[in-house]
């Protein structure tokens, strides 16, 4: 009897495998409200007003009020205009506050005709006039004052090096209603997203020089988050205690000139002992590591707005969790945050992609749907447009996702939105895990470094099937722990998880009781471990073209599903997709060029942007990707040849 039952269930599994599991769009719908022709909404600020209308600030210096924003016929009214590239909007005491490039401005409609009549300068801060000196905010602090952040400028000769030519650049500061301002925190490069969560200030930064990847930081007063530009203005009156001298005693600025006297742009150095941000923190406690790293290319490339789900369930099951926008991949990520040993840390997942342009700002509608203000501001983004205003709404169906991921003394506990299938949960072949981090160096961005596969010792699934304890070897403090739950299925329906990968930033390992091995399931249906980048396989595809050609009829190219983990891990998906042109050419288009696998390998290690002149962004060299992985991807690409 039992055997027949098992056979029957396996057959059902096999049968269902042919279908597709529900995806993001089956639960969260993107709605594009009609906007009259001619209005350009490169949204820099979004704010829902108490009466439900949506205030929008744009790059063109306009503030639009959208009345009945969730109806089929929203009405747009121009409230204010002529402002200097607004990148944030807030509402307080009956007035709108906006952040222009150089000023925090209060907009007041004195005579109540629906149009602003007073543009009051609360505080005008210095800018040097460099194009990159954007200012973001304001966000209203619990004490009623305003937080504002400022981007760095770049050098004239050293165009790659962020610098603070004037005070406030590369920092977060507080503006008071009487018009004075005070420094709050330093170390920012491109602080495009500010958020107040539970009374505390958080911000996102973008990958660049000194920022190995984007992420979200908690900003206590006096915090330093990694980029040294703003340290030039820190003095004894500043709440920031880290000094320039202290920073450069620990880090090499790599300002090197060549033989003709010109500066050389610092690039990533292979095979070095890397510096990491947490090492600076261990010496200087005011240094902050991110609450969550948002791995570059996987969870965004240009992180923006932070918003907490305060809809009490109207937006789905992720109550009180945090959503973060991305301007380059035009999507939203999700973060679950907890406090361990008094510091914030947490887990990050993809949430919803497919917006028409870069996600810059978000705010809740009164009905619990989410307004998304979009612009790529000239940097290129996934999607068809350079700007937009869209709305994301939950359709009331329960998505099958990891709900939470908490750190445990011996691993993690994942909570699911629906009960999971016990058999797949108790099979260790359903999982893989690794951990990695990023360098803290003056080069632009960092490849993932120090990656280690983590041995999964065992799992324990709760009786209701919704909480899964995963016990691992090799937890490392401060490291990003990547858990792939590819094999997990929903109980009864056997759906895959919509987002099967979670990235947990383990700033602290909690104390407490470890799970006894008696309670752990340790069985695995796999014969060998899945392919991992830390292993160098000696014999794979031969680089010899002849061999490949003669074997081509027998060799089967990997499918997209088979290489997708590699494409994700190595951030190929940041710029390429299979059939569609994104930031780079599609794999189908690359296949048309008829490169051999070896030629693709060489081009990944040393790209030739001149081969693709109509693409604005040159491909970055990727010499750190293991040869075996590249050749597998190349094989997949060439399998796309018609």
């Amino acid at each position, binding site marked *: 009897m039992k055997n027949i039952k098992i056979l029957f269930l396996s057959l059902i599994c096999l049968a269902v495998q042919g279908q597709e599991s529900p995806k993001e769009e089956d639960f969260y719908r993107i709605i594009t409200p009609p906007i009259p022709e001619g209005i350009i909404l490169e949204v820099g600020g979004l704010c829902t007003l108490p009466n439900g209308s949506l205030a929008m600030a744009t*790059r*063109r*210096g306009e503030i639009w009020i959208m009345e009945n924003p969730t109806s089929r016929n929203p009405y747009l009214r121009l409230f204010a*205009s*002529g*402002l*200097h*590239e607004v990148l944030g909007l807030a509402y307080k005491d009956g007035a709108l506050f906006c952040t*222009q*490039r*150089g*000023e925090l*401005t*209060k907009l007041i409609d*004195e005579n109540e005709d629906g*149009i*602003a*009549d*007073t*543009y*009051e*300068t609360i505080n*005008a801060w*210095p*800018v*040097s*006039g460099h*194009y990159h*000196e954007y200012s973001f905010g304001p966000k209203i602090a619990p004490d009623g004052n305003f937080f504002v952040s400022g981007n760095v400028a770049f050098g004239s000769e050293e165009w790659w090096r962020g610098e603070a030519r004037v005070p406030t650049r590369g920092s977060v500061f507080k503006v008071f209603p009487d*018009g004075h301002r005070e420094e709050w925190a330093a170390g920012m490069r491109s602080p495009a997203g500010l958020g107040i969560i539970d009374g505390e200030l958080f911000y996102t930064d973008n990958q660049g020089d000194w920022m190995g990847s984007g992420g979200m930081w908690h900003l206590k007063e006096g915090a330093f988050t990694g980029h040294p530009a703003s340290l030039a203005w820190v003095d004894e009156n500043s709440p920031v205690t880290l000094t320039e001298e202290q920073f450069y005693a620990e880090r090499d600025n790599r300002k090197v000139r*060549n*033989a003709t006297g*010109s500066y*050389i742009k610092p690039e990533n150095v292979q095979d070095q002992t890397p510096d990491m941000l947490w090492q600076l923190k261990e010496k200087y406690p005011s240094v902050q590591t991110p609450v969550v790293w948002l791995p570059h290319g996987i969870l965004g490339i240009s992180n923006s707005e932070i918003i907490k789900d305060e809809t009490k369930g109207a937006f789905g099951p992720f109550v009180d969790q945090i959503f973060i926008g991305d301007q380059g991949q035009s999507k939203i990520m999700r973060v679950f945050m907890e406090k361990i040993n008094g510091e914030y840390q947490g887990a990050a997942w993809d949430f919803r992609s497919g917006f028409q342009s870069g996600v810059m700002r978000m705010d809740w509608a009164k009905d619990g749907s989410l307004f998304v203000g979009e612009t790529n*501001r*000239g*940097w290129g983004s996934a999607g068809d447009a350079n700007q937009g205003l869209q709305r994301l709404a939950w359709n009331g169906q329960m998505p099958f996702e990891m709900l939470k991921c908490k750190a445990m003394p011996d691993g993690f506990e994942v909570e699911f939105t629906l009960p999971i299938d016990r058999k797949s949960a108790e099979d260790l072949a359903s999982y893989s895990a690794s951990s990695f981090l990023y360098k803290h160096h003056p080069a632009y961005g960092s490849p993932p470094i120090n990656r280690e596969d983590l041995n999964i010792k065992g799992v324990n699934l709760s009786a209701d099937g919704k909480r899964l304890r995963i016990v691992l070897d090799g937890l490392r403090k401060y490291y990003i722990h990547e858990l792939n739950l590819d094999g997990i299925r929903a109980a009864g329906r056997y759906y895959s998880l919509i987002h099967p990968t979670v990235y947990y930033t383990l700033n602290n390992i909690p104390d407490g009781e470890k799970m006894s091995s008696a309670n752990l399931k340790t069985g695995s249906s796999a014969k060998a471990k899945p392919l991992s980048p830390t292993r160098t396989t000696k014999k794979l595809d031969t680089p010899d073209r002849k061999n490949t050609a003669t074997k081509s009829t027998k060799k089967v190219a990997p499918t997209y599903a088979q290489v997708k983990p590699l494409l994700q891990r190595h951030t190929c998906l940041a710029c390429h997709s299979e059939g569609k042109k994104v930031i780079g050419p599609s794999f189908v288009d690359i296949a048309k060029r008829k490169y051999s696998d070896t030629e693709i390998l060489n081009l990944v290690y040393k790209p*030739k*942007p*001149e081969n*693709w*002149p109509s693409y*604005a962004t*040159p491909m970055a060299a990727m010499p750190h990707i293991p040869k075996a992985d590249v050749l597998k991807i190349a094989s997949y690409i060439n399998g796309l040849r018609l």
Partner: protein
Amino acid sequence: MRKLTLLGLLSFIPIFTFAQRKILSENLNQFKNKGGNWIIAGDATANPFKDYDIQTTPGTGVLVNDHEHGTYGDKYELVSEFEHGDLDISFDFMMAKKSNSGVYMQGRYEIQLLDSWGKKNPMHGDCGGIYHRWDESKPEGKKGYDGHAPRVNASKAPGLWQHMEISFKAPRFDDKGNKISNATILAIKLNDMLLHENVELSGVTRGAYGSGEVAMGPLRFQGDHGALAFKNIVINNFDKPAASLENLSYSVSYISYDPAADPYNIPVDETGQMPELTWEFMKRPNNYSYNIEGDFNAPADGKYDFTVFSSANNFLKIDGETVLSNKYTGPNDRRTGSIELKAGKHKVELYNAKYDAWMSPTLGLYVAGPGFRKKALHSQGSMLGNKPTDPILVNAKTNTNLRSFMDFEKDGKKQRIVHAISVGTPENLHFTYDLDRGALLQIWRGDFLDATPMWNSRGDGSSKPRGSITLFDNDVTINTSLTSWPTDTLGTGFRPRGYSMDEANRPTFLYEIHGSKISDKIIIKEDKTFERTISIESERPELAIKLSEANQIEKIQDGLYAVNNKDYFIKVNANENVQLVTNGDKKQLIVMAKKKLTYDILF
């Protein structure tokens, strides 16, 4: 007022080439004027409020038509002894109030000069218009035809010096004397604004010398409809053969960018000859470095102006001498350089190296020289494929304001103010206000702003005025003393407060300085005058308000001052407590503060 001596005048003469000459306003020997109403003077002043008024002082340098309004006729014209064909003429002129004059090219095609100050929709008969033709046989009201209105009304107030440039191409005739191409106005610019471009003239305009058209004709100035003054009249004849290129050859290297390589010592991949100047000999559009050499035939001794379009690093040398040094430019950035050459063959060398795939290659080479107009030396295909960006223009059909960075040049140095607001009006008069100082930076007439630098692609945060600009001194407006005016707001307690809008969307700027609240509003009065009102919240008789700081300020009558040799007027109430103060080599116009001060800028 000032007497320009002959010596003084000579020191202002620029270097002329063979074909360019100034019609010296020293004497009228080159002209005929039966009526005797045209005179040479040292300076001219016209009161903008008195019809037909013009006053002169003795001297040389200024050509004045001092004709009493009311009598008409040919004898009041000023006609040149010489004749001209293709011609460029530029001059400064000053209209008296309500005056009417004109410049006739070849004595036959009139460009109108009129006091059109403040006219909203200019017609063919307004300043800078190409006057209409006349057919007496047509019914009343329909006799005039084929006049061309200027694109904009660029007129300044009467009594101010204005600047006009006319570029004229004469009609062409065959051997039998039949006209084979029309006379053409290639361009007319008034006060830096383009009024006409490539306008063909079907025939002579009303009041021409006869109805026939000619290859050469005299230059003629109308003198019977009111007073006006001219100075700095410069003409350029274009009747000489043009320069040319031949024996062009190229050498090219196809390499990727290598910062360690010596740019002048790269192994050559390919060489060859080409019949025309172009970049199209190249086998690929990026990662290359080439040198083109050839012979440049200069038809005459003189100054040659070269204009180059090239993508990325490029230079131009003639006979080994650098005319345009090695610089990195975009495909739409033109550069111009000049060199004196003797007639004959010269070696031309063009270099270009490019490693940026996003730029397409381009090569444009233009030359202008003694007696010939600017001409293209490159082949047609050489500059295709570089589309200029679609401009993003901001117009002020209703009162429109825009904050941006604003660039300007002062004392030869480029500066950028970062808290600036530009205010545009449907009267086509606009200004920029510096919120960091409470100062008026500039005013201009024309269209409002070009915001392409700010809103295209990543942008640089700045916008540019579209029109003819007058710069002010961008200085702190209010001070505690008459002397020692500060250069910035340090120590003044300056605090910007923003601005409030009136019903018509016009801002009143608000700030604090020296412990007082100030409001500052600038509006357009009577469609043509800037009216500025500065209010101080409390009685502060010790404060001074600076209306202008300039190289030269002169009093025309009580309450009326001309600034920088009649570049603009400032008008205050006649009984205002005005002080004209000398501060080093500058003059300052200062009024002691009262609760409300109003003054006008006539521009």
